[in-house]
């Protein structure tokens, strides 16, 4: 072509071909994905075009099993960690909490440190953990006759106030919001309890306790266990294993505790109760 000619002439008819090619690809892809393929999904094939488009968009109709007999629903907890719940649980006033907390001292001790080994210490307990347990006691998803009665006499706002107060007390360690991995806490540790705490047991599918309960790990709603009372931990592990305590969301504790032996539960409780804040 000679210079001086308009080079955009060269685009004809390629501009059109490019658009046609891309459009055809898209049309074929949508036709296959939205209309044709859903028709060939075996037993669950949708009955109409409208249904198949719904299916392709990700809306599913549930209820194939509506005629079969279902066991009654059992809800582990009514708490869900939504933005609203978290804000409510963490916005308490420790001053107000301190006043209410005077009623707790008889069992949970002066300043939240319980002297009886089967009653948990509350000083330094995570606010969300505290809030969730009170709410579970109120709704009956966790059972304890004194605690259920107490929780029913308080409001959600008061749970948050108490949570703020107890969280501010020195007691259960490492609640500065920062939990760093520890040295010497590997799978190769020779102490079987330390191994269970820090590395878990892959053979039984048991995750490391520390990955949720610390030290060196954190999960929303899971209490730090270091320095918690020994008998209390032991009893809770038994309760989870037997299903008498069942307020763990997604049942990690029921699943894990059921796989632990009697002696492991005791040894774990001992290990956590005597755990030093910082290991060498």
């Amino acid at each position, binding site marked *: *072509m000679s*210079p001086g000619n308009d*080079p*955009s002439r*060269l*685009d004809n008819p*390629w*501009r059109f071909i*490019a*658009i046609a090619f*891309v459009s055809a*690809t*898209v049309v*074929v*892809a*949508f036709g*296959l*994905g*939205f209309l044709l*393929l*859903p028709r060939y999904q075996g037993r669950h094939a949708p009955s109409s075009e409208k249904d198949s*488009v719904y*299916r*392709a*968009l*990700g*809306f599913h109709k549930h209820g194939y099993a509506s005629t079969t007999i279902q066991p009654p629903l059992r809800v582990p907890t009514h708490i869900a*960690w*939504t*933005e609203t719940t*978290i*804000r409510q649980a*963490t916005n308490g006033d420790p001053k107000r909490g301190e006043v209410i907390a005077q009623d707790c001292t008889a069992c949970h001790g002066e300043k939240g440190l319980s002297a009886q080994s089967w009653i948990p210490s509350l000083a330094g307990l*995570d*606010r*969300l953990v505290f809030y969730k347990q009170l709410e579970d006691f109120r709704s009956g998803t966790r059972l304890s006759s004194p605690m259920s009665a107490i929780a029913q006499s308080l409001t959600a706002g008061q749970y948050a106030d108490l949570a703020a107060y107890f969280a501010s007390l020195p007691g259960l360690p490492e*609640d*500065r*919001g*920062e*939990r*760093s*991995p520890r040295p010497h806490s590997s*799978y190769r540790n020779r102490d079987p309890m330390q191994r269970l705490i820090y*590395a878990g047991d*892959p*053979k039984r599918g048991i995750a490391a306790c520390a*990955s949720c309960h610390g030290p*060196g*790990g*954190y*999960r*929303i709603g899971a209490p730090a266990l270091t320095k918690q009372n020994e008998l209390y931990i032991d009893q809770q592990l038994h309760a989870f294993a037997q299903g008498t305590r069942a307020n763990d969301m997604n049942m990690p504790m029921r699943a894990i505790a059921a796989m632990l032996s009697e002696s492991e539960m005791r040894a774990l409780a001992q290990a956590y109760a005597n755990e030093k804040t910082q290991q060498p």
Partner: protein
Amino acid sequence: MALVPVAAGRSSVLYTFYPPLVGSPWYYLGVALVIIGSYFWIALMLVNFRAWKRENLGKPVPLAMFAITACALLWGWTALGATSEVVFQILPVTLGWRHTIDAGLARTLFSVTLHAIVYFWLIPAYIAYYTLMPQAAGGRLYSDTMGRVTFVLFLVFSIPVGLHHLFMDPEHGAGFKFVQSVLTFMVALPTLLTVFTITASLEIAGRVRGGKGLFGWIRALPWDEPMVLAVGLSLLLLGPGGFGGLINMSFAMNAMIHNTSWVTAHFHLIFGGAVVIVYFAIAYELWPRLTGRPLASKRLACIQLWVWFWGILITTIPWHIAGLMGEPRRYAIFDYSDPVVAKMAPLVILSVIGGLVVLSSVLLFFYVLIRMSFAPVAESMPPIRYALSVNPPATVPPLLNGFAFWNVILLALVLIAYGYPIGQFFFLHNQNAPAYSLTREITK
């Protein structure tokens, strides 16, 4: 800024981009800065591209420049996904302003970046295929137009395809997954075009050098030239890597290998095998020009490339097989005393040996570069010459000389393929999950 938290164990690749798990805010701030910095680069590329066209009215933009600008544009488009994820979702959580995160939306936004970023790495290798290799082999590029079409196709088709990373994710319906699966197959086109064009260019060079017969030209090629050897080996590895990719992107076959170590093996094979090996050859071309000291031993450079080639094969083939046997990815510890896992152990050991071979090749690479740096300065160093094509273009259609039209097509495709999958999160509610950091309490 991003590397300090990584080195300190506060942000690991195992979770930094898998919300609701999050890492240290410093990591994300660092990453955000890197992306912002890269936008300056994109702007520079576009300004230069315009300036060149203004000064050379009517002349075709050189292929290398055309391709690298396509690469910059691609990055500009695709980085939007991860950038919005980091800025609007992750940073507010890691800084403590929010406690929950919509993991589905985050994964979708990340998928916008996740796949195209691969082509962002691949394109420089392809540029070397098209513009450096034919020259080094002593021939010419088979077709300049084919090169332009290839890079345009990469730009258009590598972004609206990211959902194929989420085939097993519940937040999207089967329809859009399938649509993006089809679009992903379109990305195979530029690679097939490239394999054809580059093989043809190699054949031209081989025949110019006196190769005869159906395959005689292959022997006649200068395989002692690092660039030619690297491209040859890269094409070989692109084969299994590419076909593995076709399996990953197939809507149905993906289910067999999803989240297994097949996937990690695949991207090591493609990136290490097909891309990085060409980067080595590019380094052997550029380093002498930067330092003014010639490459002392091409033989040692070629040995390094061969060691790398075998290392990558030994690493990735057993790794693929372990994936087919069901070995999951993103696991820190495997219990090899378990009878199911025990069968994978020999493959993993083989793969580790391959990794050591790869490592030795890297050491050799640095040895070659360092030795070069101590060599005497050459009196004159020929500048880099980009390969001419058999029929150097006097004029090219404006379509293949600029990107305006393709940007519009790409925008339309992205809206079609991602409009609903991203838009749905704004009318579906209660999708948020509590975010958590493995090392820090988010609620504090």
